């Protein structure tokens, strides 16, 4: 069942690719189109071709992205005046299709007992049909609108899949053992609280250095969270994982490396000190880190 949803996602990406290739308003349409085409094919064929071919596709995606071959195109847009007028016509009904996704996913999960991922895929399709029915938008234009949003995300769309692969390779290389050896050198007879702090503060610190909680999660969870907390102390993996990620977000509040969240807004709001947003967030961020640490300590063990 899940495989059908991957096929659907792949076909959608291939549709984006076709529209990208014929988008004469995009100077980088070939690179953009190729990127979505290869990515779409990896969705459709991934299960059926040898893994090393997928590996080469991943290499190709990296080259296209890092060479700067992707760009923003044109999407047959209608402008803000049209949107303003339509917003008055539809009012709050515009929110309804969007609500189908979370509600539908949770319902699917509780009613059928099968994976919430299938529920997410099915609900997305139902929500799209509801949105098209409400607005009378054509399927072709719906695909354009999806492509518009995906182009603004760009290569970052595949970042999670990349990081998961990295975490796996790190694990193969034994990074978990190394880091936990080091942690045990620093805190030889750590109590549970100290171990929890090593993980939550490690997440925050690495996010501050890397500017990206997702990247820090792959490293710190394989290094500290898994060996020390989940395996070593029998911690609940769901709780350790979720609150660990949220501890990383505390680091995001404190770092200029997360430019989109902290530095760009300072420029946008014409602040004199470009670190002003970080200064305002620093102390509340520390409080949140302390709260996350206690929540993990009390809930996960």
């Amino acid at each position: 069942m899940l495989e059908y949803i991957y096929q659907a996602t792949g076909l959608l990406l291939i549709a984006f690719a076709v529209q990208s290739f014929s988008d004469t308003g995009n100077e980088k349409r070939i690179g953009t189109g190729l990127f979505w085409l290869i990515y779409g094919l990896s969705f459709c064929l991934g299960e059926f071709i040898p893994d090393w071919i997928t590996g080469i596709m991943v290499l190709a995606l990296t080259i296209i992205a890092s060479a700067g071959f992707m760009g923003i195109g044109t999407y047959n847009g209608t402008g803000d005046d049209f949107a303003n007028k339509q917003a008055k016509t539809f009012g709050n009904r515009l929110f309804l299709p969007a609500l189908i996704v979370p509600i539908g996913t949770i319902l699917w999960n509780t009613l059928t007992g099968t994976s919430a991922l299938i529920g997410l895929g099915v609900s997305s399709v139902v929500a799209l049909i509801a949105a098209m029915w409400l607005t009378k938008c054509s399927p072709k234009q719906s695909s354009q609108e999806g492509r518009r949003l995906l182009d603004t995300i760009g290569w970052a769309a595949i970042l999670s899949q990349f990081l998961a692969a990295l975490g796996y390779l790190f694990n193969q290389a034994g990074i978990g053992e190394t880091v936990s050896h080091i942690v045990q050198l620093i805190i030889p007879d750590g109590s549970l609280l100290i171990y929890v702090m090593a993980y939550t503060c490690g997440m925050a610190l690495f996010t501050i250095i890397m500017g990206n909680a997702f990247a820090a999660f792959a490293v710190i969870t394989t290094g500290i969270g898994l060996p020390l907390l989940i395996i070593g102390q029998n911690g609940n993996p769901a709780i350790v994982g979720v609150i660990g990620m949220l501890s990383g977000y505390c680091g995001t509040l404190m770092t200029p490396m997360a430019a989109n969240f902290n530095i760009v807004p300072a420029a946008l709001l014409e602040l004199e000190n470009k670190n002003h947003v970080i200064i305002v967030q620093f102390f509340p961020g520390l409080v949140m880190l302390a709260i996350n640490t206690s929540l993990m300590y009390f809930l996960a063990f």
Partner: protein
Amino acid sequence: MINYWPLIGVGIITIGLALRLNTLLVILTAGVVTGLIADIAIMDILSTLGASFTKNRYMSLFILVLPMIGVLERYGLRQRAETLISTIKGASAGRVIFLYALLRTITVGLGLNLGGHPSMIRPLVAPMAEAAAEKGRTPLSKKETMQIRALSAASDNFGNFFGQLIFIGAGGLLLIKGVLSDNGFELELGDMYVWAIPTGIASLIVFFFTAKIGDLRLKNPEQPQADKE
């Protein structure tokens, strides 16, 4: 003796990202180098990369949601959200900023990414907060204006970060699931999102007080007479 070699990947990522190189390129390099150091043949690294990529396709299922959001945006979803936000009634700057953070947490928790600094904070929230602060008093000093704007920017980040994982289909949850399942712990999204709720509630309490302190500072301006800018 500890083997420090596996840490080279962490070093590559840290340096690469600090140099602002393309994130994908940095991650790929770190992965390949780490694999080579662990004596994995290059073909096996490619296979591992491909296998992991295929296995973790579900991390990118958010792509399926995009056409629906895009269609709604074409027909005024953002404009409608702007109208709703502009009806926020706040007696003070802190109240306006807190109510926005509350709305942002709830909507992002439902999987709706409606906020953002360019689309909501700059055109709406910051001006509304400044207007609320100026009501019935002397014009704001430059320093006070800066402080209110920075706090408005923070409200979007707070709501966005700590509400995000409450959505059952959140990209962050999918990544957590992927990393843990690669290491032999299978998780269900339905058992995960609930654990983001306590932090979400706590973040609103913390931000409520942050905004409140912001208000208190405004009510005691240092030497209002001397402050003529």
